[in-house]
């Protein structure tokens, strides 16, 4: 009996997700004997044509990481969708837009002009910019279109399952693959991670006070955090309470606050808004002026509350900068 074909692909991502697949270490072999890797540009020499040649639905599953920012990524996502029975959104960028989605605070024009013209390290007097089509001695050269905003996978194609994390842990990956092979996958749309927030598995859970009340906020670089005490209790914004568990609380172990890469639980539509709600309700101050003074401690609300979740959140992007120019 032929082994099920699977594909791995990356879109707008840092490559960290690919790393986790490699991090499966020797387990990868176990996987490899059970499946046939039909497409994995990072590791093996496949061409797009190889995939196009496959009949639709020939792939048992595609694991796509990274968000969709360019026409090429969109095109590949659609292609793999067409060829796959199941599509796994792999990692925070594919799930929510991830770090790249922070760029949704700027218009395409702002980004291009900065990157190709204004950035201090750029020397580009002729203000040359990449064009979708450029003619070079009689030949049309094509570059992928640079979209107006970053999108999570699900805003572009139909996604069957999500494996969260930046990056997903080997365990989650192993679990997902196992479930896939053993045909014990949960209902479509499920996020393949615990549906309880991180605090449950947080080593510092017991140090969390029952009378939490913020008189000031401090950012990780401003203090040397007590490595035993709940970070929120120290006025450091830890997204743990608003973020799925399943990561093993590695950041906490590194004495850094959770930044929310696993995204919200299934009961929450907008991770940032929910965290904001909890965080602010527990401020100590009652007067507007005092409240504002405390909030000044969080100079970058989007960066703090939507580190990964902006594109996948309810509002998706900054609004007054026009999207498509």
């Amino acid at each position: 009996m032929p082994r099920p074909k699977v594909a791995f692909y990356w879109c707008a991502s840092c490559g960290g997700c690919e790393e986790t697949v490699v991090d499966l270490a020797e387990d990868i072999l176990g996987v490899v004997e059970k499946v046939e890797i039909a497409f994995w540009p990072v590791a093996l020499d496949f061409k797009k044509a190889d995939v196009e040649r496959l009949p639709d639905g020939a792939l048992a599953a595609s694991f796509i990481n990274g968000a969709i920012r360019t026409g090429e990524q969109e095109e590949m996502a659609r292609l793999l969708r067409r060829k796959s029975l199941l599509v796994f959104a792999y990692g925070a960028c594919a799930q929510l837009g991830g770090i790249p989605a922070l760029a949704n605070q700027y218009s395409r024009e702002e980004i291009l002009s900065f990157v190709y013209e204004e950035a201090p390290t750029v020397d580009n007097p002729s203000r040359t910019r990449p064009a979708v089509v450029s003619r070079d001695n009689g030949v049309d050269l094509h570059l992928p279109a640079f979209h107006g905003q970053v999108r999570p996978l699900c805003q572009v194609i139909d996604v069957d399952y999500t494996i969260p994390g930046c990056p997903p842990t080997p365990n989650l990956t192993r679990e997902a693959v196992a479930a896939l092979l053993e045909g014990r996958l949960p209902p479509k749309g499920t996020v393949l991670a615990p549906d309880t927030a991180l605090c449950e598995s947080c080593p510092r859970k017991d140090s969390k006070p029952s009378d939490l009340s913020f008189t000031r906020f401090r950012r990780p670089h401003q203090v040397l955090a007590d490595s035993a005490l709940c970070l929120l209790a120290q006025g450091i914004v830890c997204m743990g309470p608003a973020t799925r568990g399943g990561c093993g609380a590695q950041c906490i172990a590194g004495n850094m606050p959770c930044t929310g890469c696993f995204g919200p639980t299934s009961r929450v539509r907008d991770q940032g808004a929910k965290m904001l709600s909890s965080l602010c309700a527990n401020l100590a101050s009652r007067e507007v002026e005092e409240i504002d003074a405390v909030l000044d401690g969080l100079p970058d609300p989007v960066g703090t509350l939507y580190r990964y979740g902006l594109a996948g959140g309810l509002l998706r992007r900054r609004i007054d900068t026009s999207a498509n120019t």
Partner: protein
Amino acid sequence: MNAAQPSPAVPHTWSPRIVAFFCNWCTYTAADLAGVSRMKYAPSVRVVRLMCSGRLDPQFILDALAHGADGVLIGGCHPGDCHYADGNTKMLRRFRMLRRLLAQLGYDELRVRLEWISAAEGDRVRAVVNEMTEQIRALGPLNLPGRFAEWDLELSRAETEPRTATTSAKEVSHAQT
């Protein structure tokens, strides 16, 4: 298109859609009072009743915007008068942060408004709704659903069609727009 100005397409007859979250004890009752006293105000507002402004999950506000509200009005008891001690204070704290968040994402601060209105201030409901309606009329529609669709025009419509020269031509036309 810019959120600050109404797009030229907006007809003069356009009336904003405002979703209001009123607490059961003060502001909702005030709105009832406005009705009982037959005060007249703009038909732009749709009220969602909550027991306390403290229940107001910021998600509700963002969700209302995402579903096409041009503005969101929050009504609670005056400070110190909350039927549940200080639910309104908790909302106030969230609101102060929400303003910053929305500002960072380019929303005009007039679009989301918090008002303390006691059960006796039916007239205040009238005044606030009318004022907010005018302010938002001046800002023009927010119409997020429309914008989402507009933004997605850059995506290739064809779910299944194989990649051809025409699509790359589409790419070209995108680059030109």
